């Protein structure tokens, strides 16, 4: 991999990280803490929505975020031909 390609690979990786961390911040610090009382006005079944984000929603999103990143990076590795194989 030459220097230009390395830079491009790293830049794409950083973009993924920034976007996914924005979601990470949104579900936990924003929905689960900062606007939790406002969200509580909405209910899903027995759960007030803000309470649900604080109790479960943020954790479920965290799991999804990691696996999305795993998928994106595996594709990126193939695109730049640095895939490590099975």
């Amino acid at each position: 991999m030459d220097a230009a390609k390395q830079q491009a690979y790293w830049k794409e990786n950083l973009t993924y990280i920034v976007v996914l961390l924005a979601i990470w911040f949104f579900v936990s610090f924003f929905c689960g803490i900062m606007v939790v009382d406002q969200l509580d006005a909405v209910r899903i079944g027995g759960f007030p929505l803000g309470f649900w984000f604080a109790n479960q929603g943020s954790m479920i999103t965290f799991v999804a975020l990691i696996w999305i990143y795993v998928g994106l990076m595996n594709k990126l590795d193939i695109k730049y031909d640095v895939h490590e194989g099975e």
Partner: protein
Amino acid sequence: MSILVWTWIITGASFALYIYIAYAARAKSTGDFYAAEQSVPAFMNGMATGADWMSAASFISMAGLISFMGRDGSFYLMGWTGGYVLLAFLFGPYLRKYGKFTIPQFMADRYYSNTIRVVSLCCAIFVSFTYVAGQMRGVGVVFSRFMGLSIDMGVVVGMALVFFYATLGGMKGITYTQVAQYCVLITAYLIPAIFISMQFTGNPIPQLGYGSTITPEGAALLNDPATQGKYLLDVLDGIQKDLGFAAYTQGTRPRIDVWFITMSLMIGTAGLPHILIRFFTVPKMRDARSSAGWALIFIALLYTTAPAIAVFARTNFVKSIHNVRYEDAPSWFKNWEKTKLVGWKDKNGDGVMQIAKGAWDDAKSTNEVKIDQDIMVLANPEIAKLPNWVVGLIGAGGLAAALSTAAGLLLVISAAISHDLMKGIITPDMSEKAELMWARAAAGVAVCIAGLFGIYPPGFVAQVVAFAFGLAAASFFPCILMGVFNKKMNKEGAMAGMIVGIVFVAAYIIYFKFVNPSMNNAKGWWFGISPEGIGTVGAALNFITMYVVSKFTPAPPQEIQDLVGSLRFPGKVAPPSHH
């Protein structure tokens, strides 16, 4: 069969399994001992990380804590899982690419300084000992409550077991034992939760159950037909308000404090050496990412169940005790009274148990019932009238959680001594055989010290747990992050940042916990940030200091910048041409 017999059978079988695995996976080289020859599949590493992470406190105490704190307790849930996102994105793959054995070693290579290595190894040892003290105590407590041994005897049995598999197997033995321990602990945690969720709401998934409505069977268990068809959380909110507490789904802690604690726990998690070193054990960079994904799935399985247990247990406990005559108290209440986890003091002399705000032994409060947080998990199966074998599982699960975490921490301590201090600094020409001997000896000594902490618990353990996270957040997190993401970060910056972070966090915690505890409240804290959340500020100060100092000091040598470059890509990367 009785609960005691079931507990002995299940615990005995699980111990035999751990010993067998440890023997089969014993370490033959230092690579084996520190990093399991980098041959652990991502799925297994995720499971081992889960067991490593979930401690006696997660298993025994967390659901109970949350049941008292209501929504405020969510900072444990978000804080102790959110760190894995950071690990997967920012640390895991790059540490794996680096490929060596310890965090102090990474710090020393990246920041080309042995001083940093010494500071890092001291931090790693301090953080790990703080953490391990609670684990050995946890082992003793489980033995004494479920199996009739004394706490001290329990600690000794636990020590002997950990000694055997940590010194023999090193990382390899620990990893595969942790996989087994995860299976034991998660089974023990989920089965009672599933049963209880079915009883109350008819929904076998506890995560959904506590947001559902109460069935006729559930209402019968609660002795309150009026609750039938109502949402469980609404019923609990009502109970809380009747007793004079805040509604369960509402928070009372200042939001800024919750925010800072959550952040501190997240970045502290991502800076804990015993979790970071797990990423050295997988074969490839991509496995590091997916093993973080597996780890979080396995952890979230327990962490999403905990708030459900909290809600079921709290509702059930209050309904079966509050305003009930003592002679009519359920049998589990009287059983657990012997362990002093629950108690009753008839302050108004009416023979009826009343729960209210305040401490049960405080004459001014009308509260008459003592409820220890641990009872919510330990006695939950009995409270819900589950069969004896389910109760027997809880003991084995608690032991698995405590032992697996203790083993991971002891390995960090052992590697810090043998690899970083002895091989890295004092006698660099030591042979591999000698190093392995040192590693085993250090693990053995560390087990004994940890055991002493368990038998003679220093009173300050609970006080310094905030320290472990605060310190990890303010020291390792910023330095490793900048080490990977900023090629120009130099040793002067890292050194200054670490010192500022550590000193600030230590000073803040020592001041509020030891020097002036009377000020340890929202009014006394800076900006309303508690000592538990101060790691966030310490990390921010570390980042700022690093950045500023690095701007005024020479950039790192070219080979260090090339090393950082090579961490960012899989496979062999030719160093970029220099201009």
